[in-house]
């Protein structure tokens, strides 16, 4: 049996077994769960090489699986994150109910995402896509809250996306005669103009939903914050990247052949930038860390989409690099929130404060991820953002860069809020008992934080595979030394020249801190939180000193007009209107036998009257 089949078989049986094993023993269940994620991942990297393919038939349809260079980059996100978050999940799920359910859906999600990357034909692509959708849906409703609102909304949007995609798939089948993705790409340049427009638009709707692209993003904040955090790290980190994966394939291998592709790219880039701006603003407004990160994910995905949509080598590189980085730092942050939630029971900034001493490792991981998110060197976000700005400048998108720059700057606000709200500020008695999260949860966070440091410092590590992937998609060959194309490194000579300077600065900073600490240590006097005086008054015990509440009020007041129009309201209005309409059609069935008989007679009479027009 081919290794590829074996990988999927292990995933599938692992999902079922790790569900059922809960009936026997919980430790066994955890081990089986970890095995069913880790074993296939190891097998994948050991035994599956790029270009290897398997073919088979199902229902008379030719299917084919194999990994491409482009898919390989995403497999790093999916499996890397999948394994780390799986380890985290074991810690996270300890003592919780419905573990089997969680593990089952978790493994299926990872399997389906890998399956998407493997699919060379649309049918298996769609099948995996839908497995991904429903397994993530089941995760969204895991805790049983808001199932009918957030859960159903997520599924409706996913279904809209998936069905748009399905429509594109069957249309492309009617054109090419089979379901191969490659055949559609080959046939695309010679299609009729209508189809050339229709197919990418439908596909973009499908992928745009998962990539949380405005105006299809409304499901994301709710779904991200409602699912268990151990899964949200995968949800936001890897699952949303499947949308990016599809989007990049459409943009790179279809739209680039379209003479009118320019407008496509412009519109999509603007949508991405607007998503980024709106997402950032909403993130700043949130008082709940889950919601904040969820909106922040939407915003970050906006950058990624913008980068891919611009369509120059550098911008795509930037977009994909940001995708990898986002997967790393955002999942770390979600994990940190999960750890905090587990230890304190809440994720609200206005309630939890001053955790820095209680959860130092979580703080460290969060700090590094926040730095990466904010785009401060030497962590990963910086390189990606720099490349994105540069690509926007070099491709003359000045208006766009203002928007992106605005949201990127505004992101500092919520970054600060996150760090301050949870970890800094006044220590309250209520949280005195809080301890660091279990080691199984801390290690994945630290590993990921370390990764964002490594990749930020040596971006070439991941830029090279991305470059290979882009070439595999038939994109224009990029420069050999990708980092040369960035102004940052050019003006400083090259990467080698830059790093010493960066590290010299960092080193001085570290030495200085150590020096200060040692020097100051002797004179240290520990103070309690209330041991201060403000305007000559000593605060009382019950007074709240933290300014987590109503953070950034003036800023929010300034941007309030932009945020007043929520697209969500329009959707809800539309849905309510539809339900009312359906209530009207329901009344066709009156429940009265006479009415039904009249329907029959009327139908007959009308048919007899128009029979010559209908049948001929």
């Amino acid at each position, binding site marked *: 049996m081919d290794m590829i089949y074996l990988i999927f078989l292990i995933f599938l049986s692992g999902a079922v077994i790790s569900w059922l094993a809960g009936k026997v023993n919980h430790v066994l269940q955890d081990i089986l769960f970890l095995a069913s994620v880790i074993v296939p991942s190891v097998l994948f990297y050991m035994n599956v090489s790029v270009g290897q393919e398997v073919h088979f*038939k*199902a*229902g*008379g349809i030719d299917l084919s699986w194999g990994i491409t260079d482009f898919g390989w980059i995403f497999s790093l996100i999916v499996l890397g994150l999948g394994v780390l978050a799986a380890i985290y999940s074991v810690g996270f799920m300890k003592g919780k109910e419905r573990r089997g359910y969680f593990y089952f859906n978790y493994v299926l999600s990872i399997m389906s995402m890998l399956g998407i990357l493997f699919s060379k034909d649309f*049918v298996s692509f*769609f*099948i995996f896509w*839908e*497995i991904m*959708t*429903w397994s993530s849906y089941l995760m969204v*409703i895991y805790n*049983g809250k808001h*199932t*009918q609102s957030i*859960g*159903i909304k997520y*599924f*409706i949007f996913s*279904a*809209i996306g998936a*069905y*748009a995609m*399905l*429509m594109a798939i*069957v*249309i492309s*089948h*009617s054109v090419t005669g089979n379901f191969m993705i490659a055949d559609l790409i080959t046939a695309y340049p010679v299609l009729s103009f209508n189809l050339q427009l*229709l197919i990418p638009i439908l596909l973009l709707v499908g992928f745009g939903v998962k990539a949380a692209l405005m105006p299809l993003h409304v499901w994301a904040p709710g779904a991200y914050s409602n699912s268990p955090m151990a899964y949200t790290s995968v949800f936001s980190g890897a699952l949303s990247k499947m949308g990016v994966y599809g989007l990049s394939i459409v943009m790179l291998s279809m739209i680039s052949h379209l003479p009118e592709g320019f407008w496509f790219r412009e519109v999509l880039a603007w949508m991405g930038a607007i998503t980024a701006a709106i997402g950032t603003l909403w993130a700043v407004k949130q008082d709940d860390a889950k919601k904040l990160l969820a909106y922040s994910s939407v915003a970050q995905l906006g950058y990624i989409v913008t980068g891919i949509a611009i369509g120059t080598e550098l911008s795509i590189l930037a977009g994909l690099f940001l995708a990898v980085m986002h997967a790393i730092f955002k999942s770390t942050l979600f994990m940190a929130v999960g750890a905090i939630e587990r230890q304190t029971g809440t994720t609200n900034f206005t309630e939890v404060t001053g955790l820095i001493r209680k959860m130092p490792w979580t703080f460290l991981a969060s700090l590094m991820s926040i730095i990466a998110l904010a785009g401060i060197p030497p962590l990963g976000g910086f390189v990606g953002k720099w490349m994105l700005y540069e690509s926007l400048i070099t491709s003359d998108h000045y208006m766009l860069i203002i928007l992106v720059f605005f949201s990127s700057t505004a992101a500092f606000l919520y970054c600060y809020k996150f760090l301050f709200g949870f970890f800094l500020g006044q220590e309250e008695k209520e949280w005195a008992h809080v301890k660091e999260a279990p080691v199984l949860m801390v290690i994945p966070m630290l590993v990921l934080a370390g990764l964002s440091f490594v990749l930020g410092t040596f971006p070439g590590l991941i830029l090279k595979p991305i470059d290979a992937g882009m070439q595999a998609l038939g994109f224009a060959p990029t420069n050999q030394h990708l980092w040369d194309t960035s102004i940052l490194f050019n003006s400083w000579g090259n990467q080698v020249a830059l790093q010493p300077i960066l590290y010299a600065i960092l080193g001085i900073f570290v030495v200085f801190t150590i020096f200060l600490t040692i020097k100051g240590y002797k004179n240290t006097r520990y103070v309690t939180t209330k041991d201060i005086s403000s305007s000559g008054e000593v605060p009382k015990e019950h007074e709240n000193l933290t300014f987590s509440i109503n953070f950034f009020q003036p800023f929010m007041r300034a941007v309030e007009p932009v945020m007043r129009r929520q697209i969500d309201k329009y959707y809800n209005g539309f849905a309510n209107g539809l*339900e009312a*309409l*359906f*209530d009207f*059609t*329901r009344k*066709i*069935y*009156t*429940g009265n*036998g006479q*009415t*039904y*008989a009249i*329907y*029959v*007679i*009327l*139908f*007959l009479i009308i*048919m*007899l009257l128009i*029979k*010559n027009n*209908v*049948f*001929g």
Partner: protein
Amino acid sequence: MVGTPVLLVVIPLLAAFLIPLLGMIWKELVRIIPGLVLLYMFILSATLLNQVLHTGPIVEVIAGWRPPLGINLVFSPFSGFLVTLMTFIGLMVWIYSYRFKQNVDFEPAKKYFILLMMLVTGSVGIVLTGDIFNLFVFIEIVGISAYALTAFYTERNSAEAAFKYLFMGALASTFLLLAIMIIYTQLGTLNMADIASKMPEMNTTYKITALVFLLTAIGIEAEMFPLNGWAADAYTESPGPIGAAFAGIVAKAGVYAMVRIIFTMFDVDGTMQFMLYIGLITLIVAETTALRQDRLKRMLAYSSIGQMGLIMVAFGIGTAEGVFAALFLMFNHAIIKPLLFFSGSYLVYNSKDKFIHETNGMGKHIPITSILFALGAFAIVGLPPFAGFWSKLSILTAAADENMIIIIALILIVSIIELVYYLRVVNRIYFFKMAEGVEPKKPTLNALFVMVTLGVIILLVGFYPDAITGVLHKASGDLLDKTKYIQDVLLLNP
């Protein structure tokens, strides 16, 4: 050789008449005999189907009168496939209701099984017969037993539902008879193949009038909009397994009759478009109505009507792929909808009004039933990797090949509606708190067996669609080959 097609009609009919007599000997026989009969029928039809797939249709002549004079039965890949499916569902219904009726008195049990036997007889007869008047007779047999089964609980509501059904059924019979009269006066024959071969000679006005009457009559049976008012009531008020039988057996027979008329007997332009559009309207109206239901069985009933509409759309596409998709849909619907009815009736077992909100929290108490309901719900809306996906894919592919982009879009939009109301129920089952005073009813062993079997088939077809597509391709090829049908019947060598 296990038997001939005629036994498929004779045996259950005979059993229906013998059940009361045998019941006098030993009361348990009333329950056992139908099962044996159905099992035999299933084995027989499966064997015959296997045979006709390789050798071609079996045409059976009754009493030595050769067509076009005598009545004949045609066991072709298409009709054989349907008969196998129906007898299988019949068997499942029997297994499910075997113990279900154990605590019921002898009298109701006797009636129940007699009526079930007649229902199966009629439905199988509709599919097998090659004679249009014989078709009428079988439709009447189905009708009579179905009315009685709808009123089985002898309550006000079920009586009302049965009356509505009866009322509509009577209209259907009248129109059907009228259409048969028109055809007979014009062509002087009642044999379907003969009618088909002589159809070009028929005066167009008569032809179209007859077609309209036929479509109206059969449309009532096949749950076509706006003639399907009876259906939801009948599904809701009849006993749970009978709802499954209506969806899996009776509705299929109705669609078969319609398809036979449109594809084989008549050659009128525009019937395909008519079927396509009326199917689409049926689909949209039924699914939107289902969204706003607050009773579980009623919701399932409207969903079932919607599926029948979708099947009509698939037939209306008219190409080989379309027919293939339609048969696939019929198969899936015949497997999945009974599963939903079976498990659904346990979810609201002890409730009087069968409200959807009474399923709240059942997932904890009757886990297997709940998960099978969820599986059925996921499968019927066409989520991969379950069976429903492949049929949905094939109907969309068929429509795309004919450039029916608007129709694809409509089907998909309706699918989203379908998704919403099924998910609402599934969410309730698993994530809502059970109301006080609700007593979950544990399914019997037989019921579990049936539900698990159907669930396994859903998964099997989902993961390995080739298990069924081969038969479906042959069956659809058989349906589309009108000339061969006429030849097989009329040029029959004695």
